[in-house]
């Protein structure tokens, strides 16, 4: 049996991102030294949208980078099929910056571990914070998000996908039963 349920629509996603943008500014007391880094592929468009919102509120452009974490994964030596490597593009120094990592779904926490290792190879950020649209639980590492769009309790056999206009033509968060 396959069931598909929309748990967040376009307005919901936009309202969450607006709130997260404000929370990021509130926690960091403004946009000083702030940079956003989206994790490929799910986090990139969300980071871009957050950057627009924050830049509009602050009245100045907040730097925005893209991080591919493939080379830092912990399952490369156990799996034979290699994930396709995407481009990393962080065209500014991270030294002394407050970095907000952005991803779509927080699940086991392994992606975030890899992302933090990668960021630290790029320099010494003043702090690293994490913003996610969905936190679905089931952490395998001691990691939590600073900014969460929606907590979505899920079962391990369910699939949570964040669809975005830039990627699949429609803004929605869907939860599916996978047999």
């Amino acid at each position, binding site marked *: 049996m396959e069931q598909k349920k929309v748990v967040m629509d376009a307005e919901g996603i936009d309202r969450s991102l607006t709130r997260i943008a404000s929370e990021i500014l509130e926690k960091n007391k403004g946009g000083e030294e702030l940079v956003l880094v989206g994790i490929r592929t799910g986090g990139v468009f969300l980071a871009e949208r957050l950057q627009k919102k924050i830049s509009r509120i602050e009245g100045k452009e907040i730097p925005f980078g893209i991080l591919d974490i493939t080379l*830092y994964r912990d399952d*490369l030596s*156990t*799996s034979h*099929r290699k994930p*396709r490597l995407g481009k*990393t593009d962080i065209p500014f120094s991270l030294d002394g910056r407050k970095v907000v990592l952005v991803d779509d779904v927080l699940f086991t926490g392994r992606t975030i571990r890899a992302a933090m290792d990668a960021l630290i*190879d*790029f*320099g010494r950020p003043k702090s690293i914070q994490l913003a996610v649209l969905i936190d679905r639980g089931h952490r395998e590492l001691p990691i939590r998000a600073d900014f969460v769009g929606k907590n979505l309790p899920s079962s391990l056999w369910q699939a949570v996908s964040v669809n975005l206009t830039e990627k699949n033509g429609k803004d929605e968060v869907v939860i599916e039963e996978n047999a």
Partner: protein
Amino acid sequence: MKLSSKDILGIKELSVEEITLILDTAESFLEVSTREIKKVPTLRGKSVINLFYEPSTRTRTSFEIAAKRLSADTINISASTSSVVKGETLIDTAKNLEAMNPDLIVIRHSAAGAPHMLASLLRQSIINAGDGAHEHPTQALLDMMTIRSRKGRIAGLKVAIVGDISHSRVARSNIHGLTKMGAHVVVAGPATMLPRDVEKLGVVAHSRIAEAIKDADVIMMLRIQTEREKQNLFPSLREYAQYFSLNRTNIALAREDCIVMHPGPVNRGIEISPDIADGPHSVILDQVTNGVAVRMALLYLLTGGSNP
């Protein structure tokens, strides 16, 4: 997607999809070499042996840097300082290396087919870094990467390869790769240096450089191996330079936006005049930079777990 073979022995064995996968992966790897900390942990705990039976600076260093930037351990063995001088056969050397359990062996050998023999004998991945006059697949891949990044495509371009086609593994690998990717490849060189049935490889052969480079998008000059002079394949280096060098005059026949490539080491003033080698059309140093990225891509794609 993954590569269909555990080894990279030649371009002839690769499909268009595999070549594209390697080039796309290599483009992503370019960025790692521009970082302040030029190292990623991807191949931590893997070891790569560079087994070089022929002299090499560029290719060996490039493989070594590629492996080190991926955190693999590298061991370099050159024939002159190994048990080869004591008469050990290639198979014995290889079996002994295998017993030390490396993950990947890069081999350059003067005998065509040496990497293929190792690939069939050993369970490790083998990368051919040049075997006789047969193939030099990583050179062709870095050349294709350079062409693609400069021209945005490979299909439909006119590529002229000029020089000693017969003895060139660079030419052979590039002919296989470029024709697969849809380029229009022409070759030129002295009649003694053109394989008799070169046109069976899908290229057009010319006896004059002018005919080959006319309207070319890409000109690939090959190194003339100066030791060939003794084999009477051409009367003198001076005469070769007069008829087959790329210079300020004849480059005007090519397209205005053409790129000039050379696999190195360059014999300045023989196959290419210094002002062209250093001029605005030259992408010779891009080729070297891209070489590291291509080799990182291959190491990444070939090493991995045994679980399917």
